[in-house]
C-alpha cells in the first residue's frame, strides 16, 4: 500500500503546488458564469416551482466545475508525464496497475471536490442555497469525478500530444457537459433533444447531484445512481485494462 499512497500523495502535491491554476482559477471562471447568467436570466426563468433560476443553476455549475477539474487533473498529469518522459519513474517501479489507477482517480476526486466545495462556499455568501440531502450530492460528486478522472486517464494515455488531448476535451467532454442539463432542465427541451439527453451519462450525474440540493429531479435519483455506477464500473475496467496491457505506455 505504501506505493499507492506515495503516488496518491505525489498526485495531490502536484496540483496543490500549482493551486492558483488548478483550484482558484476554475473557481473564478465558474463564479463568472454564475454572475453572467444571474444578471441575464434571473428574472425570466423559473425551472422548478418556487426555485429561482440562480438557485437551480448553482448546483449545475458546481457539478460542471467538478467534472471539468476531475478530467483535467488526471489527463494533464498523465500527458505531461508522458511528454516530458518522467512517466518512466512510475513505469519502472513495481507499482501495480490497480495502484496507479486508484491513485490517479482519487487525486482527481479530491481536486474535483476542492473546486466544487470552493465554488459552493463562495456562492453561499451571496445566495441562499438549500442542501437538503447532502449525502446524495456527495455520492454523485464522488462517482462523477471518478468517472471523469478515469476518462482523463484514458485521454491522457491515448493522446500523443496536447493537441489531441484538447480535441478529446473540446469535442467529447465539453459538449457532454454543456448538453447535460447544467443550465436547464431537460423537460424544457423538445422530445428529440430529451431523448438524446437521456443517452448522455453526464445528465444523470448532474440530475442526481441536483436532487441532493432540492429533493426534486428530472428522473429518479436511484435510476441516476444506478446508471452512473454502471458507467463508472465500465470505464474503470477499460482504464485498468489499458494500464495492464501497457497501451501506449509500454511499447
Amino acid at each position, binding site marked *: 500500500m505504501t506505493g499507492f499512497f506515495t503516488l496518491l500523495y505525489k498526485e495531490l502535491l502536484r496540483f496543490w503546488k500549482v493551486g492558483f491554476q488548478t483550484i482558484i482559477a476554475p473557481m473564478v471562471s465558474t463564479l463568472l458564469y454564475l454572475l453572467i447568467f444571474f444578471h441575464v436570466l434571473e428574472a425570466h426563468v423559473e425551472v422548478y416551482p418556487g426555485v429561482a433560476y440562480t438557485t437551480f443553476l448553482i448546483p449545475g455549475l458546481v457539478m460542471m466545475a467538478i467534472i471539468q477539474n476531475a478530467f483535467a487533473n488526471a489527463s494533464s498529469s498523465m500527458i505531461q508525464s508522458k511528454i516530458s518522459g518522467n512517466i518512466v519513474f512510475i513505469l519502472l517501479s513495481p507499482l501495480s496497475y490497480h495502484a496507479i489507477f486508484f491513485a490517479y482517480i482519487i487525486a482527481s476526486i479530491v481536486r474535483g471536490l476542492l473546486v466544487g466545495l470552493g465554488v459552493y462556499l463562495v456562492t453561499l455568501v451571496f445566495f441562499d442555497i438549500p442542501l437538503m440531502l447532502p449525502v446524495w450530492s456527495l455520492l454523485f460528486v464522488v462517482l462523477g469525478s471518478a468517472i471523469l478522472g478515469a476518462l482523463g486517464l484514458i485521454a491522457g494515455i491515448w493522446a500523443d500530444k496536447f493537441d489531441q488531448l484538447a480535441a478529446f476535451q473540446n469535442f467529447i467532454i465539453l459538449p457532454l457537459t454543456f448538453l447535460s442539463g447544467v443550465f436547464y432542465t431537460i423537460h424544457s427541451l423538445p422530445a428529440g433533444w430529451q431523448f438524446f439527453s437521456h443517452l448522455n451519462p453526464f445528465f444523470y450525474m448532474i440530475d442526481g447531484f441536483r436532487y441532493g440540493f432540492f429533493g426534486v429531479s428530472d428522473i429518479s435519483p436511484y435510476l441516476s445512481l444506478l446508471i452512473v455506477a454502471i458507467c463508472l464500473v465500465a470505464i474503470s475496467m477499460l482504464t485498468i485494462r489499458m494500464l495492464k496491457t501497457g497501451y501506449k505506455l*509500454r511499447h
Partner: protein
Amino acid sequence: MLPAIAVKQVSKRFGAVHALSGIDLEIHSGEFFALLGPNGAGKTTLINIIAGLSLADSGSVSVMGHDVIARYQQARSNLGVVPQELVFDPFFTVREVLLIQSGYYGIKHNTRWVDEVIEHLDLTDKANANMRALSGGMKRRVLVAQALVHKPPVIILDEPTAGVDVELRQTLWDFIQRLNRNGHTIVLTTHYLEEAETLCNRVAMLKEGRIVALDSTQNLIGAMSTGKSLQLRLQPDTLPAELQPLQIRHDGGMAELHIDHYAQVESILSVLRSAQIQILEMHLQQPDLEDVFVSMMKNGGNQAK
C-alpha cells in the same frame, strides 16, 4: 547460481524494423557487464524490455529469477534503471523526488539511505533545489540516485556518462564500482569504450539487433587478429631489409611493424641501432576494445559465438 538477468530468444520489431532478433544473454550475479554497439543496434530496446518499459514480441526475460511480465513487481523491485534520456519531474525538489521514488518501491522512511546517495553523488548542495533549477549534469546525478533508492541488486545504466563532465564521471564510477564490490550486478551501455574496458569483466556487442560478440573483455581483446604493432618515424626513413617482412604499412613517414611479443621490440631496436638509423618517434600500439568494436562492426556477425 541464479543469473541476475536471463534473456531468452527475445525478438522485437517496430514496424518493418527488427530491433532485436533472437537475443540470448545471461548476466551473472555480481558482474560488471557492458552492452556495446552503435546507435540503433538495439541496446536501449533490450534494456527497455528487461525493465518492462517495452514488451518483447517473443521470448522471455527474468531479473533475479522473476519473469518481467508474470512477476513484474518482484522483477522491478530487483532492478534499478538509469534511463538514457534526461527526464525529470519539474514539480519537485531533489529530496522530494528521491523520497517519492522510494515510496513507489514500498519503502517508507528512506531518509538515511537517500541522504547517503545524495552525499555520494555530490548532490548535498542541491538537495532542496527544484529539479528545474538543476544543470544537465546534476539532473543526471539525480537520475542515478533515483535508480538506487531501493538498493536494487541489479543496476542498469543506459549511457550514464553521455555529455557528462570528467569530475562527475569519476564520482559516478567510484560509486558504481563500490556498489559492484558490495555485490550489486552492474550493466552499462556507453559510447566511451575505454570506460567499458577498464570497468567491465564481460562485454556483449550488438549489431542490428543481434549479439555479434559475447566474451570477457580480455578474451575479446586477446583474440584480435591484428595483434600489437610498433610505429616508428626513422631518420633516414628506410627500414633495414631484415625488418621489411614485419612492415604492415608505411604512411606519412611512419612505418608500422607487426609484433607478436613485447620481447621483439628489443631486437627491432638493436637492428636499427646497428644500421645506424635514428628513431625520431615511437609508439607501441596494442589492440583495445575500440579495435575489437570496429572490427566486429565491420565484419558483421561472422565472429559471433
